[in-house]
């Protein structure tokens, strides 16, 4: 089932939690809502679920306007960060609760519960109470409860945030696999960009109740439409500094007080003035002893596969990734080579990208 949000708006008193949200989700698509805490992700999700009534705009399931449809008639499944299992019911009763409300037969409920339990590997837990399960087990049960009704839309609200790091990674791929196998259209709310980037077909980035971008993860990473997206997506975060652009014969150059960079002819801002913000990701900066851009290493953070070097050029802080085998140490001076083919440019006033618009 495809889902459309048109000009969706929700206010709490004077505060606008969600502001004119427009989104077109395709049938079977896995969409992540990504944004910092308080940006309106949950509010959007709860409007989609029918818990909150929108102040303005439309929610369309397939070709059905559902603004006034009760949650129970929307055929959706929902999974919460807090698991939200019913504490007084056993795992089995939790899972078949929706079927019980539909007055399905005992036999049918047992059959379906077995199917879902098999899917999630919780067959041995059916008799337990939620209080006797670990967090990961509880979240599987919650997933089972959402899946048993064969929903046309699955809503996830930060489902993995309460789990420990290792479990989070396994659950991530498990949810993704289930979603793909079952082909259920899904909206997945998270503030964790890694989750959004690894799981989603498309990511909707939100900030202050507004949609910033809606595109596939790779595009979000390669072609950030705003400085906010460039900052939020990618780990470690992108470096930014102010530069002045000048033409030098055929070439364009970016002047910083401490150094000058040659721009790539295929990657020159198509608009904006000469004062711009240049962005470059840590992984796009190489160490090159012959470079005249000299930086002092302040801190070395071993990340395992890479070392993250926090460096300083004059009063400019810049972080880069380096091979741990090179054994850099704080206090060392290194030369930096910035790859001009991966520069990003932003307007210093509006924070809009000067490359992608």
């Amino acid at each position, binding site marked *: 089932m495809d889902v459309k949000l048109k000009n969706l708006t929700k206010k709490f008193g004077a505060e606008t939690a969600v502001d004119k949200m427009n989104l077109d989700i395709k049938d079977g698509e896995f969409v992540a809502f990504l944004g910092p805490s308080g940006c309106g992700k949950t509010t959007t999700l709860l409007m989609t679920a029918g818990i909150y009534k929108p102040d303005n705009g439309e929610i369309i399931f397939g070709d059905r306007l559902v603004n006034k449809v*009760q949650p*129970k008639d929307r055929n959706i499944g929902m999974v919460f960060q807090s698991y*939200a*299992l*019913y*504490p007084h019911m056993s795992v089995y009763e939790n899972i078949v*609760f*929706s079927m019980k409300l539909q007055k399905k037969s005992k036999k049918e409920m047992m059959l379906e519960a077995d199917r879902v339990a098999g899917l999630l590997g919780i067959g041995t837990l059916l008799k337990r109470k939620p*209080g006797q399960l670990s967090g990961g087990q509880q979240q599987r049960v919650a997933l089972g409860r959402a899946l048993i009704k064969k929903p046309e839309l699955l809503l996830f609200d930060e489902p993995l945030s309460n789990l420990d790091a290792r479990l989070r990674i396994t659950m991530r791929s498990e949810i993704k696999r289930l979603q793909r196998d079952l082909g259920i259209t899904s909206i997945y709310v998270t503030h964790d960009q890694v989750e959004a980037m690894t799981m989603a077909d498309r990511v909707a980035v939100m900030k202050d109740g507004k949609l910033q971008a809606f595109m596939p993860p790779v595009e979000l990473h390669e072609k950030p439409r705003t400085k906010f997206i460039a900052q939020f997506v990618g780990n470690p975060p992108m470096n930014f500094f102010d530069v002045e652009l000048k033409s030098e014969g055929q070439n364009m150059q970016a002047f910083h007080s401490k150094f000058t960079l040659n721009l790539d002819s295929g990657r020159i801002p198509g608009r904006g003035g000469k004062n711009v913000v240049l962005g470059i990701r840590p992984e796009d900066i190489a160490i090159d002893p012959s470079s005249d851009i000299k930086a002092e290493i302040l801190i070395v953070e071993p990340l395992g596969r890479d070392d993250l070097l926090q460096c300083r050029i004059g009063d400019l802080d810049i972080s880069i990734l380096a091979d741990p085998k090179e054994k850099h140490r704080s206090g060392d001076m290194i030369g930096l080579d910035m790859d001009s083919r991966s520069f990003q440019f932003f307007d210093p006033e509006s924070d809009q990208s000067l490359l992608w618009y």
Partner: protein
Amino acid sequence: MEKEKRNLTGLWFMLPAIILVIVFFFIPVIMTIGISLTDMSSVTGFSAWKWVGFKNYIKIAQHPDSITNFIATLKYVSITLIFFNVGLGLLIAIATNHLKNSIGGFFRAAWLLPRITPPVVYVLMWSMLAADAPYGVINQLFRIPFGLSTTNWVPEYAFLFIVLVNGYIGASFGMIIFSSAIESIPKDIMISSLVDGASYSQRIRHIIIPQLRWPLLFVVTYQTLSLLTSFEYIMILTDGNFSTEVWSLWSYHKALNNYWGNFQYGFGAALAAVLVVVGTLLGIIYMKYFRFDALVQEPKIDEL
């Protein structure tokens, strides 16, 4: 060794409560039972009394009013408890929970007003409501203008009135306990049940009420005991006339407010002792029925 020491420390913390229970419950109960085994009255005074064994209890068993008063008490306690203290309390709690916060809060606050009104004033308001024609709000607003017959409502419907007078106040206790219990159910669980396909009424039945077992046990137990033993509203409204002489009021009348000035302390104490026994028995039955032990059991896993 270490464990014993810990238990002893725990005892110190319980000491104030233990002292209160002993001074205000056990000692009075023992004294009541003691007095119930004597013939103490205004005639004997506090010096010339003697032990009479179970004579007072035999007298209760043979007393012509015993059955009537017992049935009145049973009816009064169970009807007020079920329909008002628990039923109406739960209804208001659930209803106001589904209203907007400000409206629900206002309604609950308003319902609490009688509880902070002095009983005499509160009952006086009921008396004025039900007073005989040509007075009384019921008569003046709802009967006379429509040409309907008027009456003196309290004597006519005495039992109904004592239930209403007590129930209206009693409901506010359950209302507070149930409201806070409902509010403490996590929001996600409430949302989840709606998404799972529950209507609001199904959510009340399958999600909210099952999670109110503890507060229900507490309110049922506490209110049974307080209905059994408190009689001030009935005393002010009917003084036990018109078949409203409940057991506790009977005990009070016999022991401390006898019409002929003969205070039968011994007999009254025996009546009170019966109440203590009935109350204790009911408390035990409730705890068994609600499986109190399971409610206070420690959770098996405390990590998330």
